[in-house]
């Protein structure tokens, strides 16, 4: 698929801007702070309903404006789809698909599949587990949009269960006795639901990690030849000592790796039962996919805390390129967006990366210096300056 048109109103630095794109490589060139990344961020928002830079929507709306509008036209399989999103901080966003309003923004997921690599991705290697969980879940949604629902159901159940644990905890602390029978009964209910959605989410992640892992190894070797073997491993609180759940629970299915949801749900329930005393003591849910991590290894060492700056950066890039390869191998053909990648690479690696991605249906590239972009990716060029985007060749 490719983005044919992007139109922004009051998004970030842009009062209004309209850009036409073509398949193949497009390079957005301009000095720092001119709004190049803002364009990729807008597309990323359409693809994932979140920004790769901020966790809240307020910074996405131009200072002084009330709401931002992102309109895109996406061509996929010869058909054009238009998506319109209205971002209103503090309120539910509104979305339209081919001009008809959808009942919830989530329904536009899947219309645009984008893999974005940005300097912020260094946090995938160096940051908290939350960064890597988000990486997995975003990719899971790009792979199967229905997981957006699973993810939000899980988060909602988790919030409710935590609220119940917290109330009971506070009541006990205030000397108002232990939770009543009715409260414990409801905890049982929340356990069951947490296990159901948790197992689904966990299964999705395990299947994903299992499918993604060969692509990561390959991509790392491509961006950093001879740099060692890069591996990923899902770290799950449910695992027994030394158990790797991507091998113990994943079996080969007709359409890729499969995990038995019932087995996972039963293990999750058992783990919840075991940690019940500790949870009541602390007033929070201590097991479940919201506590897991994705371990990144380079050779025999964990990347976090050990890898050099260059290695960490290559690993982050490899994770994105692997995501791209995986989706592509499954017939999804996402748009690839590379924000400021080439400035970090030496000449050989630039050329190498250029060749690696030059076959993509569409690659959107930002850079401050046009000369940094390798030969293979010199397609359409746009100058970005002072809030305007102008096609120059």
């Amino acid at each position, binding site marked *: 698929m490719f983005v044919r048109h992007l139109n922004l109103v009051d998004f970030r630095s842009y009062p209004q801007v309209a850009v036409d794109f073509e398949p193949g490589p497009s390079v957005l060139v301009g000095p720092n702070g001119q709004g190049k990344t803002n364009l990729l961020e807008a597309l990323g928002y359409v693809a994932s309903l979140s920004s790769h830079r901020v966790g809240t929507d307020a910074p996405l709306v131009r200072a002084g404006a009330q709401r931002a509008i992102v309109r895109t036209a996406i061509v996929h399989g010869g058909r054009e789809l238009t998506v319109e999103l209205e971002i209103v901080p503090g309120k539910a966003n509104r979305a339209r698909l081919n001009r008809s309003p959808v009942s919830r923004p989530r329904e536009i997921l899947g219309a645009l599949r984008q893999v974005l690599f940005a300097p912020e991705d260094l946090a995938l290697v160096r940051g908290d587990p939350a960064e890597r969980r988000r990486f997995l879940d975003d990719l899971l949604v790009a792979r199967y949009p229905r997981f957006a629902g699973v993810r939000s159901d899980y988060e909602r159940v988790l919030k*409710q269960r935590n609220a*119940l644990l917290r*109330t009971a905890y506070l009541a006990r602390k205030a000397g108002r006795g232990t939770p009543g029978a009715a409260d414990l*009964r*409801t905890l*049982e209910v929340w356990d069951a639901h947490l296990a159901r959605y948790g197992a689904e989410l966990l299964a999705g992640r395990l299947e994903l990690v299992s499918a993604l892992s060969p692509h990561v190894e390959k991509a790392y070797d491509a961006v950093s030849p001879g740099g060692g073997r890069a591996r990923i491993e899902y770290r799950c609180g449910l695992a027994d000592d030394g158990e790797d759940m991507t091998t113990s629970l994943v079996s080969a299915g007709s359409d890729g790796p499969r995990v038995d949801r019932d087995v996972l749900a039963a293990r999750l329930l058992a783990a919840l039962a075991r940690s019940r005393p500790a949870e009541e003591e602390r007033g929070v849910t201590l097991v479940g996919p919201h506590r897991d991590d994705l371990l990144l290894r380079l050779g025999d060492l964990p990347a976090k805390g050990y890898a050099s700056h260059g290695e960490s950066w290559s690993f982050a890039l490899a994770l994105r390129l692997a995501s791209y390869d995986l989706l592509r191998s499954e017939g999804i053909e996402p748009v690839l967006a590379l924000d400021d990648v080439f400035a970090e690479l030496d000449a050989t690696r630039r050329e190498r990366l250029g060749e690696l991605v030059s076959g993509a249906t569409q690659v959107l590239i930002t850079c401050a210096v046009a000369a940094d972009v390798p030969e293979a990716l010199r397609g359409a060029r746009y100058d970005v300056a002072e809030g305007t985007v102008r096609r120059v060749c």
Partner: protein
Amino acid sequence: MYEGAIQDLIDELGRLPGIGPKSAQRIAFHILSADPADVTRLAQALQRVKEQVRFCSVCFNVAEQEQCRICRDPRRTDEIICVVEEPKDVIAIERTGEFRGRYHVLGGAINPLEGIGPDNLRIRELMERLQAGTVKELILATDPNTEGEATATYLALMVKPMGLTVTRLASGLPVGGDLEYADEITLGRAFEGRRAV
């Protein structure tokens, strides 16, 4: 800020669900310029609703008498009870014309974030109705969202020992939603295709 009575009215309207400050202001000025007879009718309707409408002593639907119209209807069967969250859900299900049993209105759903547990809902009253032994099937028609599902699971657990058939509306309802917003056909189908839990 306006002075006196008009600001009071804007404030009161603004406290109603779904009415923001701008709408409150628009409605207030509409009332100000409306025909006095219309305004009197509105004021009386507001007062009457508090004076005359109460909750049915059996099912907790809204009623003008001791029992609601549905509980008084002798043509309906006592063998099936449909459990819903709010009176508006009764209206939605009645519109489908698929259901000829009785209702039980819980008054909400289990929601720890809002401090609502089973004791805050009319669950004890439901259990008392079931003790009588007339009811053969319980339909759990709470909303198809996190809280509605949890409430349904909780009720299913509670009534399990009683040995009656417990069913849940078929999927196909908009997930994460509200029964009220399901159209008649979808809701009717969900009723027909209800499955045992």
